[in-house]
């Protein structure tokens, strides 16, 4: 991202959510974005993933400049290169877990075998829930289905916004371990937004955001270290 500015609203009610953000998310590593509520974390993620149009600046994923991409190019990008996981799990309530997982491939016109779907769900420990509807699953299980759905297309980058935000600490741990595994064994890139220092500490590096600007970055801190940096920011 180079000099990204994002403003919301018109004249009187203008909010500058991102104010000249420049950063890289190195391939094959896990970056956490931290900051107080309202600091622009989600906005950063949306702009980085091409879900939101930036006001000015440039965003590139690999070689592609997504600030000038057409809708068709962005759709193709979502099919092959990037995946999403959000705090509210965003599964289709009318489809079973297995169908939710198979959906991205089906939309991309790829034939999916039941076996493939089962394998991916087994990867997140839900092999026996393939025929359950989202509402029959716990929050942690729904989030794991969402991760399985994001993984099934083997995206180069996974964007996650507070993926553990709605989970208890035990479910959160399971989800974080899954993400760690994706980075370590599949070499995927993860950009994750969180406000929880303990969660951020799982990442390879942490970017701190305040009032729409990047104010700090660190690598290799434990939860305690991250919490101290955050506290310093909020003062």
């Amino acid at each position, binding site marked *: 991202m180079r000099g990204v500015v994002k403003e919301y609203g018109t004249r009187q009610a203008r909010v500058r959510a991102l104010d000249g953000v420049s950063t890289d998310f190195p391939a094959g590593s896990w970056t956490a974005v931290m900051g107080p509520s309202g600091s622009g974390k989600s906005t950063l993620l*949306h702009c980085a993933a091409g*879900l*939101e149009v930036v006001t000015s600046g440039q965003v590139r994923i690999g070689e592609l400049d997504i600030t000038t991409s057409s*809708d*068709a190019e962005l*759709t193709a990008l*979502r*099919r092959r290169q990037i995946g*999403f996981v*959000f705090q*509210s*799990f*965003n*599964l*289709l*309530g*009318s*489809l079973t877990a297995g*169908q939710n997982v198979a*959906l*991205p491939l*089906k*939309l*991309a016109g790829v034939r999916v075998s039941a076996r493939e779907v089962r394998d991916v769900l087994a990867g997140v420990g839900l092999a026996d829930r393939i025929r359950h509807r*989202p*509402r029959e699953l716990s*929050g942690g299980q*729904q989030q794991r289905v969402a991760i399985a*759905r994001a993984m099934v*297309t083997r995206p180069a980058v996974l964007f996650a*916004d507070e993926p553990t935000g*709605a989970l208890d600490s035990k479910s959160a741990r399971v989800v974080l371990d899954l993400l760690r595994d994706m980075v370590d064994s599949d070499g995927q890139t993860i950009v994750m937004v969180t406000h929880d220092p303990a969660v951020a500490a799982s990442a390879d590096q942490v970017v701190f955001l305040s009032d729409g600007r990047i104010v700090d970055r660190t690598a290799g801190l434990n939860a305690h270290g991250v919490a101290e940096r955050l506290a310093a920011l909020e003062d």
Partner: protein
Amino acid sequence: MLRLSFNTFAERWPLFTGAILTVATGVALVQSSLLILVSAATQDLPPGLDPGAEAQMRDAYEGAVSLLGITLGIAYVLAIFIVSSTFAFTVAQRRRDLALLRLVGGSRGQLRRLLLSEALLLALFGSAIGVPLGILAEEAQSRLLVVLELIPPGFSAQWHDWILAVSFGVGIGVALTGVFAASRRAATVRPLDALRDVGDAARVMTAGRWIVGLLFTGGAVAMAIVSAHAPPEGAIALSANIALVGAIGLSMLSPLLVPLVGRAVGLVLRGTTLGGLAAANLRDAVRRTASTAAPLIVLSGLLIGLTGTLLSISNGIEEEQARDIAGDLVVTSTAEETARIASIPGVAAASAQTPVTVTLIERYPDGEGGEAVEREDTGFLAMDPAAYQQTHTRTPAAGSLDDLHGETVVVERGFNGHEVGDTIEASVAGREVTLRVVAVFDSSLSYDGFLLPRDLVSDEQLAQAPTQTIVRIAAGTDVDAVSMEIRAAGLGEVYTVAESISRAKSAQDDLNWRINAVIMGLSGLYALIAVINSVVIATSERKTEFAVARLSGLSRAQVLRMAFIESWAVATIALLLSGLAAGAALLGIRAAIDRLVGVPIAVVPWTMTAVVVAGSFLVVGAATLCTAAVATRPRPTTLATARE
């Protein structure tokens, strides 16, 4: 992809069942109206009728055909409007699901294809149910026509195989039309919207809504203005059109009114938590509110507009007759007795008028060197010009009634464009004659300016025909005494002119009521189904919202009450707008009557209005309460925590 639709169907069956239902009933209604219309237009008359009876029956069928034309037109427009708005609503309700599809890699084209193929499937289902339903509707509609004596008793509607193509074509075409624009809009949904609870607050007044809304509302206003110059025979159709088109236009613009009514509800129920919640919900769900109100706007607009139009017409006719008749008594009898009325002492003038059906014959080259003949029946009055002029104040706009002898005729202006001196080929009482137009009246509401001389028809043929004689009493003679005398002579029923006019008005009102029943019978039922349907769809879609409300502390009863308050606000919006549409129709008919009769008459149908208002609140309120009760039956936690 269609697997998604099937699963969605299981999940949101009221939404999809509602869509199928509107297609099925709409197809049934159009199919039945069209078959009956075609059957009435091509009906073979029973053999062996004498010429007079045959002409009368043909006239009855012609009347039925023009009535059925209006019925079919309304049914068709209603079907288009209701089906397309229901389908558009089903699409709008699924914005979040669609955004989610975009998020996981669905293209715009895929979304559109999904929605269109879904609509196609629903429409196929709906049409398949609609065809047999249409046969039942046809049965009901034919029986209604016969019972109300608006079509001859022997009538039966015929089945035509081509109707299958029409029914499926209408069902599918109308559904796809409705989804087409909606799917285009839905395809532009941003993937990010899956994350936000955008509800449907996002721009309701789309360009399409503005265009259709302004076009239709403007069209209704234009028609109301044109009404002043329209021929009287088109008045009912025009008025129904104004109400229908105006109601559709205003229902498109109704989102503009929703926030205002929301604020009004907030004001009226100031201080109550539920009132505040209901007001906020109304403002937040403008599209849902507008979609729910739409069929009710059209139904009540049509009912009030049409009833008001018919009442205004019968009042206009009453006014016209009171102005035209310059007599004291009216005697009804057969033509035979009328000759003796004039000889009763004290009678200054007696003008007998016997209805005679005249068959106009039009010949034109058929394109193959031969000649095609078309016959059209029109009601005339056989009378004596001298007596007529002594008992009527009406004078022709051109020509003179004094020339009405032999093969001559008087018509009203606008009748096939005939002027004084024109000739008309016709068959009168089985005899072909060439009639010369000797005078032309201005057009009237009651069509009683079509006259022919009594001597054109033989006495034998007229003898048994029902006849009205308008009697003027000589100055200084007691009206009651003459009246007694005529009655005593056994010459027929005697009424004062005022009595006679009011009897005619009752007969006219009765006829109007029957016309109303035919036009609005099945169409009204259809629109009523659509009203209930839209309420059920909208309310059952709020399951999760209700659950969240209960988790935030509302009891089930409070949720029901909140939904009820909202439903009455929706009904209020619908009634206000339908009142405007009906008002435009009444202004139109008022201008028409003003031109024809010289007095601006518009009757507000208070009884019908009261019935419609009470019925609307009752139906909408009850349907909302029932659906909300069902939607809140599951424990709230199971719904609200399923954040999917």
